């Protein structure tokens, strides 16, 4: 395992910090997964596949356009990095995906399994329905009996295969003494089959084989929609995780060697390159640098680290290489301990019961009581067991929650599909319902409302020569402030001067010779200027002239302004919580017009603040990205984090914002409210059909034809109502 490390392009600023260098895959004929966010047409597919397949050592390469991924079978000596460079030459952005983090099998096989059952149920119900149409239109005597027997021969095996998910779920619920939606479903299916068989045996008029099958078909369709939406969300979420391949550089006798973070042990010496995130908690033993703690604390000002100082996992090294002696690894790092806070906060949220569950709780006992009453009533009145059982089965079938089973999944699939198109990924099944109830929005500052990238504010105060020197000095450094200077200088078309002997002094700044003069740029205290400490700044000194300060601010993220205006117009309370210094937070809150803000908040305080709002009966939407927000994200009613956030923060939140802009959030609230309204409407439609059909069933007038009509029309009208969300774009 060698380490040739060039920092390849990465998808997001958050990943920029982690070591993204490829590692030799250990397995024979390695399966390499690449994420290709920019492929979009057949020409792209052909180009990528041709490029990859013509590379020596690649056995096969196939692009999946739906997932925007390339799957490559290649000999072990093929390095992922070279393939990424190869694609970059062709004009495609590619990122390595950690194949281990993508558990494609579980979600996808579940979806495939449901689809197979759905196909069998669909086939069987079509055939039985054809036979039933013949019976309804007047087939008699031997013909009717024959048709019923054939129906039975199709329905019994078909149902015993395709209705298994319901039977299994119902059995699990009954075993622990509870009722769920699957109990009345299973009971209706089984009772319909039993009475129909009995009727067929006795050459009766009515058999409900078609009803039992269509019921299974519609309900499976709902389950499948649900599974598909969830697996799409999960695979996108997994992809975000897989983009961060956790690797670290460990010192060995012959220099640093790349190893998996999980292999690190306490006492190991770990090299953290500039731009990389510390993989462990540790003490600095060698090197000097500045670290960015923004993701952990929300603090935008970089801090200096010298030998003897402690560094926590997750901090980003900015300037010089640092060697750490690991003091805590894996589960013991401060990063992981913070994640434990999340588990505690999350327990509160699991108390939320979804609309569907609440409906089921009302519904399941009601149906059973109704059908039992119908059975007993008819038994007393007519004394005929066969008639009474028939009536009971009819009641169960008519009331069976075909439409209810479709009501929620159809709406959530349509709504999450629409939001996904706008760059919002919904991870949790009930997130939309919870989002619809929100009345207070709590934001984190650094990295959420702001980009986390500093921007130069007083560039115009500088003289032309100073600008040129600052630009030339900044070009030699990867420090975020240098990058900001370079960006500003490029944008203004600034000239640069020729410098010699440029050297970066890690932890302090950059110095160089400009003709006969010495020029320096870096920490104000290093140059010898006193800064008020409230602003992010760097000092520049040209020769013997008096040093000047360059000041920076953190800029607002794209769409932040519109989002806040939209939220306030809709009457939401907006709160800003930040771990940053008071002055910075106040200035930012003023600029965006946020009235309530709290600065210097510790992670625990943030979580408590959010929990307290919850106790006051408010429904809080928390938007945050850092580790310091994780607990707050988990304790909020519903939470959103940007894709650039730390893995822990993304894991704790219900939705992930995929793009750079914040604007989808306002729309998401609107869509969520609309979706909840649709779900309620769907429940009403389903109830309406029941109100009409149930009296018929109880009165013994529900023929199989009426059952089939009621079931199909209610299911179709519910689905159409749900589709209205996706359609209105």
């Amino acid at each position: 395992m060698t380490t040739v490390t060039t920092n390849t392009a990465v998808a997001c600023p958050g990943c920029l910090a982690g070591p993204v260098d490829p590692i030799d895959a250990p397995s024979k004929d390695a399966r390499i997964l690449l994420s290709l966010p920019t492929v979009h047409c057949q020409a792209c597919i052909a180009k990528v596949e041709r490029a990859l397949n013509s590379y020596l050592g690649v056995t096969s390469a196939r692009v999946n356009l739906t997932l925007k991924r390339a799957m490559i079978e290649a000999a072990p000596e093929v390095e992922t990095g070279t393939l990424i460079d190869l694609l970059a030459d062709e004009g495609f952005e590619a990122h390595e995906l950690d194949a281990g983090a993508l558990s494609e099998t579980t979600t996808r096989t579940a979806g495939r399994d449901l689809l197979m059952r759905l196909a069998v149920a669909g086939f069987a119900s079509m055939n039985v329905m054809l036979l039933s149409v013949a019976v309804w239109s007047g087939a008699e005597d031997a013909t009717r009996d024959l048709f019923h027997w054939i129906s039975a021969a199709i329905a019994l095996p078909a149902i015993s295969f395709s209705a298994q998910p319901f039977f299994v779920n119902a059995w699990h619920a009954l075993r622990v003494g509870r009722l769920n939606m699957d109990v009345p479903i299973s009971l209706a299916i089984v009772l319909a089959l039993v009475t129909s068989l009995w009727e067929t045996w006795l050459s009766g008029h009515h058999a409900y084989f078609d009803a039992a099958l269509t019921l299974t078909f519609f309900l499976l369709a709902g389950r499948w929609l649900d599974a598909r939406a969830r697996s799409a969300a999960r695979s996108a979420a997994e992809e975000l995780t897989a983009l961060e391949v956790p690797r670290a550089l460990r010192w060995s006798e012959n220099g640093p060697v790349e190893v998996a973070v999980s292999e690190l042990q306490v006492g190991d010496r770990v090299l953290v390159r500039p731009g990389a995130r510390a993989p462990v908690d540790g003490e600095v033993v060698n090197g000097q640098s500045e670290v960015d703690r923004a993701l952990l604390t929300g603090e935008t000002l970089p801090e200096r680290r010298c030998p003897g100082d402690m560094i926590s996992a997750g901090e980003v090294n900015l300037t010089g290489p640092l060697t750490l002696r690991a003091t805590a690894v894996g589960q013991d790092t401060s990063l992981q301990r913070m994640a434990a806070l999340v588990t505690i906060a999350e327990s509160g949220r699991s108390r939320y019961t979804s609309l569907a569950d609440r409906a089921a709780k009302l519904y399941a006992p009601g149906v059973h009581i109704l059908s039992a009453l119908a059975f007993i009533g008819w038994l007393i009145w007519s004394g005929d067991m066969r008639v009474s059982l028939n009536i009971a089965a009819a009641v169960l079938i008519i009331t069976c929650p075909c439409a209810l089973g479709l009501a929620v999944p159809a709406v959530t699939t349509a709504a999450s599909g629409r939001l996904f198109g706008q760059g919002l990924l919904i991870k949790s099944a009930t997130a939309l319902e919870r989002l619809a109830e929100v009345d207070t929005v709590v934001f984190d500052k650094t990295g959420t409302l702001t980009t986390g990238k500093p921007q130069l504010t007083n560039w115009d105060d500088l003289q032309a020569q100073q600008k040129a020197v600052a630009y030339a000095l900044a070009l030699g450094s990867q420090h975020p402030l240098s990058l900001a200077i370079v960006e500003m200088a490029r944008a203004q078309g600034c000239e640069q001067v020729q410098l010699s002997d440029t050297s970066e002094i890690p932890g302090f700044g950059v110095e160089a010779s400009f003709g006969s003069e010495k020029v320096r740029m870096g920490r104000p205290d290093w140059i010898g200027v006193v800064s008020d400490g409230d602003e992010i700044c760097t000092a520049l000194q040209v020769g013997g002239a008096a040093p000047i300060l360059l000041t920076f601010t953190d800029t607002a993220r794209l769409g932040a302004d519109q989002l806040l205006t939209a939220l306030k117009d809709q009457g939401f309370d907006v709160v800003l919580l930040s771990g940053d210094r008071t002055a910075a937070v106040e200035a930012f809150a003023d600029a965006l017009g946020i009235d309530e803000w709290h600065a210097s908040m510790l992670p625990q305080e943030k979580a408590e603040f959010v929990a307290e709002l919850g106790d006051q009966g408010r429904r809080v939407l928390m938007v945050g990205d850092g580790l310091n927000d994780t607990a707050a994200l988990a304790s909020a009613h519903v939470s959103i984090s940007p894709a650039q956030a730390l893995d822990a923060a993304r894991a704790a939140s219900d939705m992930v914002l995929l793009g750079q802009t914040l604007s989808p959030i306002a729309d998401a609230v609107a869509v969520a409210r609309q979706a909840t309204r649709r779900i309620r409407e769907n429940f009403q439609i389903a109830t309406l059909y029941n109100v009409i059909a149930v009296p018929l069933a109880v009165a013994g007038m529900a023929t199989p034809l009426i059952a089939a009509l009621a079931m199909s029309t209610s299911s179709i009208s519910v689905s159409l109502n749900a589709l209205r969300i996706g359609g209105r774009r």
Partner: protein
Amino acid sequence: MNVLAYLIPISLILGGLGLLGFLYTLKSRQYDDPEGDSRRILSDTWDDYPKDD
């Protein structure tokens, strides 16, 4: 009505063939990349000679 003795089995077998066909496409993972497959047909790479595996 004797024709039913032929027609019903025939219709069931035909339908069953369709079902088997669908299950086959499902098993051979033909629904993994619907978007890509709909585009691949537009590519003329293998139009003149077949791809040799």
